[in-house]
């Protein structure tokens, strides 16, 4: 059987090219009520009063709910966020009321009639504002919120929601040993996930007390747990369904609309209520990706070996903590980038501001962190007069090194960065970083940057798989991971088909997830699904085959050891003419006389992350993930020195995939990731005005790359160093192609424009300003 390693199409592909793929907003029950959020039109203000009288008069309006009606505080790490603003608003766009009506038009009309009176407060509009000693506090209560998932270390009477630190080695000595020192300050705006499907949730409370949620979510089991906790329900009462999701990128891992949908349904006697973000809501009201500033200092000996890394990272997490403390620890744990650095001191701060709150964004903090580190690496190469790729090769982290948090590295849990760097030389045709003149004012230049990432998942993350059989011997696979594009379901089916030695079309997998039916899967995040689901599927396949062989052994009057299988048959190894078909065993074996044995066969599989721990508060030491994926990215750019416009000619990635399970899907993931990372680097960014109003809450103003703006050529190469505890050796690769490509672009353009470009996005104006400021 050759299913692993082949480019099979996505299971649901035919549905996606015929309009038959159904997303949450495509499945509607007639009579569904609509809920619409009323967004705050202040960034930081005390709420004096919210007048809902006019809104309630609109025909069809059934309820108008405000923060006063809710006592819940939500947050998966720290419970600091009221689902509807209470007492004060902390960002422009924060929902202050929820209108529930018979139809969407009435709800929207009524939402426009809700009037709020505010007492404005000073707006914390940047990290600098927030850290000022006299700064207004975004949260007076900071430090006294309930901690749902330790660790988190908020600083009372400040805007610091959390701090994570890592120390390793002896910094004083390291600086003394350093011949060359560089310092870099980087600054990145908040960004949006901009999944093409806006977020949506539906809720219904049945007469028997069951709560049915349908949502566009990466975390249906988290929705179930949090709703149970916030509203004092039994988890079993709550059934969460996640159909196909139209893009996620981390933005659908949080829980927001689901809470409001439940509250809205409760307000109308448990009727089905739908809440769908407009694109404006999706950009300004639902969480973004964090903004970021960093100060990086690197020290190296004259031969280029890095001795010291001292770093401070500041995350503009916006108004609420959400998953920021987890992201802070992920940044801390991987803070050096994929380099062996003996002496490290790193502080990461989660900073509250009056910006839209933030959550995971593809790469979980590693993209901005990598940008900072990789800009510093290029500055170091320049100071050392070294080829930037040589510098990275010299310092590349290797098996037997330890990470900044002192996790031990092996060939299996790390992969082979030096090999990836070598391959990149060939792939992009590396020219040493020279600026090549093409004509008057026009130059061509390459840039390179490397990345690593691990999962930073909780130490008790679980996954599972269930297999049932059909009467013809085909199998049904049930997993708890959501499908939002990367082919998670298809990969799981491939693994099962390979294990059972049956064609892929004999494995059936439903595209939705239902928490009541499917085995728990932590969250479909962190690129971990292939690893976690894969192991669970292997376990389930083994369980199923053990049972099938047992029954077959009885029927064939031999030991299970005498049997082998293939072609949907179980046969005696030394005489394959003695066999049973899978279909004869699937639902129990029936002897010719009529009596039967075995019953229906079901495979159960489970997996739990092992050997991880929470990072120590003082030193940061600990193991943040099961394995690291490493790789290197490069771009080739043509740049006009007069207009500062540029064109990306090539974008290249070499990534250690461990084992490529589906080459076409894997390439697509990597190419799409590069495109997204380059979009972020070249044009994306949330704009706030001086009053903290979010200015670009539409896709005509929040710019995404479009057709024709992508690089002329994408180059993708996989190397395969197996991760031995993963199914077929595969490593996580889903997020990674966004991580370093923006840094590679900045490195290339910094050399082309002869100015340090340490901010994003790099627009022609940004280059022009940087050159003028020099």
């Amino acid at each position, binding site marked *: 059987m050759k299913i692993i390693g082949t480019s099979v199409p996505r299971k649901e592909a035919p549905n996606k090219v015929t309009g038959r793929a159904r997303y949450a907003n495509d499945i509607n029950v007639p009579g569904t009520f609509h809920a619409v959020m009323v967004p705050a039109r202040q960034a930081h203000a005390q709420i004096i009063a919210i007048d809902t009288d006019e809104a309630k008069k609109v025909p069809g309006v059934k309820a108008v709910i405000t923060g006063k009606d809710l006592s819940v505080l939500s947050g998966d790490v720290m419970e600091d966020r009221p689902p509807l603003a209470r007492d004060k608003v902390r960002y422009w766009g924060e929902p202050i009321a929820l209108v529930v009506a018979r139809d*969407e*038009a009435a709800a*929207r*009309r009524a939402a*426009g009639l809700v009037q709020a009176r505010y007492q404005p407060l000073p707006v914390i509009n940047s990290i600098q504002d927030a850290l000022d000693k006299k700064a207004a506090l975004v949260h007076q209560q900071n430090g006294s919120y309930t901690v749902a998932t330790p660790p988190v270390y908020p600083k009372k009477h400040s805007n610091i929601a959390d701090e994570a630190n890592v120390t390793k080695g002896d910094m004083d000595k390291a600086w003394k040993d350093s011949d060359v020192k560089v310092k870099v300050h980087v600054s990145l705006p908040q960004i949006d996930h901009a999944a093409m499907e806006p977020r949506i949730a539906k809720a219904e409370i049945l007469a028997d007390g069951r709560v049915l949620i349908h949502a566009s979510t990466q975390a249906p089991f988290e929705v179930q747990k949090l709703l149970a906790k916030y509203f004092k329900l039994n988890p079993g009462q709550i059934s969460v369904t996640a159909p196909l999701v139209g893009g996620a990128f981390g933005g659908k891992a949080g829980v927001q609309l689901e809470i409001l949908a439940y509250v809205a349904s409760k307000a109308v006697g448990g009727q089905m209520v739908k809440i769908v973000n407009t694109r*404006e809501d999706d950009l300004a009201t639902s969480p973004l990706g964090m903004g970021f500033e960093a100060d990086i200092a690197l020290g190296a000996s004259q031969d280029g070996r890095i001795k010291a890394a001292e770093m401070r990272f500041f995350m503009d997490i916006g108004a609420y903590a959400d998953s920021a403390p987890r992201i802070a620890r992920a940044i801390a744990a991987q803070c050096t980038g994929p380099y062996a650095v003996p002496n490290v001191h790193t502080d990461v701060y989660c900073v509250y501001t009056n910006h839209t709150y933030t959550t995971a964004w593809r790469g979980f903090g590693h993209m901005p962190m990598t940008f900072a580190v990789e800009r510093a690496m290029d500055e170091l190469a320049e100071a050392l007069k070294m080829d930037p790729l040589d510098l990275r090769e010299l310092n590349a982290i290797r098996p037997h090194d330890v990470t900044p948090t002192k996790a031990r590295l092996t060939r299996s849990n790390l992969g082979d960065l030096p090999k990836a760097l070598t391959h990149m030389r060939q792939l992009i045709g590396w020219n040493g970083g020279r600026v090549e003149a093409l004509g008057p004012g026009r130059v061509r230049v390459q840039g390179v940057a490397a990345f690593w990432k691990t999962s930073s998942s909780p130490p008790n993350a679980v996954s599972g798989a269930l297999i049932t059989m059909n009467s013809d011997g085909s199998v049904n696979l049930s997993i708890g991971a959501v499908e939002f594009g990367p082919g998670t379901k298809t990969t799981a089916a491939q693994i099962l088909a390979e294990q059972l030695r049956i064609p892929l079309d004999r494995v059936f997998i439903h595209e939705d997830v239902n928490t009541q039916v499917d085995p728990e899967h932590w969250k479909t995040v962190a690129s971990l699904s292939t690893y976690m689901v894969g192991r669970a599927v292997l376990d389930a396949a083994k369980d199923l085959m053990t049972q099938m062989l047992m029954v077959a052994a009885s029927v064939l009057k031999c030991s299970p050891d005498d049997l082998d299988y293939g072609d949907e048959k179980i046969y005696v190894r030394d005489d394959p003419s003695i066999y049973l078909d899978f279909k004869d065993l699937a639902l129990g074996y029936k002897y010719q006389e009529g009596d039967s044995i075995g019953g229906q066969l079901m495979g159960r599989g489970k997996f739990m992350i092992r050997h991880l721990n929470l990072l120590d508060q003082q030193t940061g030491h600990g193991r943040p993930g099961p394995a690291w994926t490493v790789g290197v990215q490069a771009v080739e750019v043509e740049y006009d020195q*007069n*207009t500062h416009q540029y064109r990306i000619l090539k974008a290249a990635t070499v990534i250690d995939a461990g084992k490529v399970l589906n080459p076409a899907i894997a390439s697509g993931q990597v190419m799409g990731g590069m495109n997204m990372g380059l979009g972020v680097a*070249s*044009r994306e960014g949330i*704009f706030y005005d001086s009053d903290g109003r979010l*200015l*670009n809450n539409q896709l*005509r*103003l929040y*710019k995404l*790359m*479009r057709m*024709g*703006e992508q690089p002329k050529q994408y180059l993708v190469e996989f190397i395969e160093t197996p991760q031995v505890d993963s199914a077929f050796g595969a490593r996580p690769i889903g997020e990674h192609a966004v991580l370093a490509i923006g840094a590679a672009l900045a490195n290339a353009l910094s050399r082309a424009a002869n100015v340090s470009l340490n901010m994003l*996005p790099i*627009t*022609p*104006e940004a280059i*022009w*300003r940087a050159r003028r400021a020099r």
Partner: protein
Amino acid sequence: MLPFGIEYYRPDTIDEALKLYRRLRENHQEPVFYGGGTELLTRARLQNVHFDAVIDLKNIPEVRVHGRSGDWLEFGAGLRLTDLADGNLWPLLTATADRIADHTTRGQITLGGNLLSTIPYREASLPFLLMDEAEALVATEDGIESRPLANLVSDSFIKPGEFLVSVRVKGDEAKGIAYRSRKMTRQDWIDYPLVTVAVTRRADGSLRAAFSGWAGFPFVSSAVNHILSDTGKSARRRAQEAVAHMPVKALEDLHGTREYREFVTEYTLAQIIDELEDD
């Protein structure tokens, strides 16, 4: 989806449309004349505008004219921007209009809608602003009136109850002219302009430039045209002086700062002058 209910009317004649408007007003309704709908529908969805009846003009033959009429080149207000490109009767208009929005949306935006937009750019007006003779035909209670398009940006150009039927330029003037039209954006091909510059060069060598995106309205400036036409100076010098003598300050917004707009406008003008004078 509109958050409020409306009535929809599609009259077949100018007279019907005008009478309908008056009747609806007398009925205390708020009618709007409707072209492609792209702007009204997006603004209405956000409740930035309210109306309770739309009068769709696209079925009126006069708003769909597209061709020569005597000395004039006529363009109906109801033509889609893609119609302009497909017919390509006036390449300068094609060049400017073909950079508005994206291709699919250009199949929905009408010429009249762009010319009278509340969004400040209105790039389709630039070619007309560059002509000596460019007129709008406006349907009024007193019949069709012709008005100089130079007054397009004045508030009273179209009064309530009136609608734009078509615009026209003198064929000889429009087609006997060398031109360039260039839209400069922050970074993206599909975006609002930092500045769109349309420049003509006449047989006598004089240059005229029209700008969109620089300010909250499109404009031409005789002072700027005078500077640009001074062939005694280098293109770069003229571009510098033109930017220094613009009649209004450049905008500062999320597409770009004022100074950057000046920088881009300057090099764009210089490039265009060089190209036109090399031809």
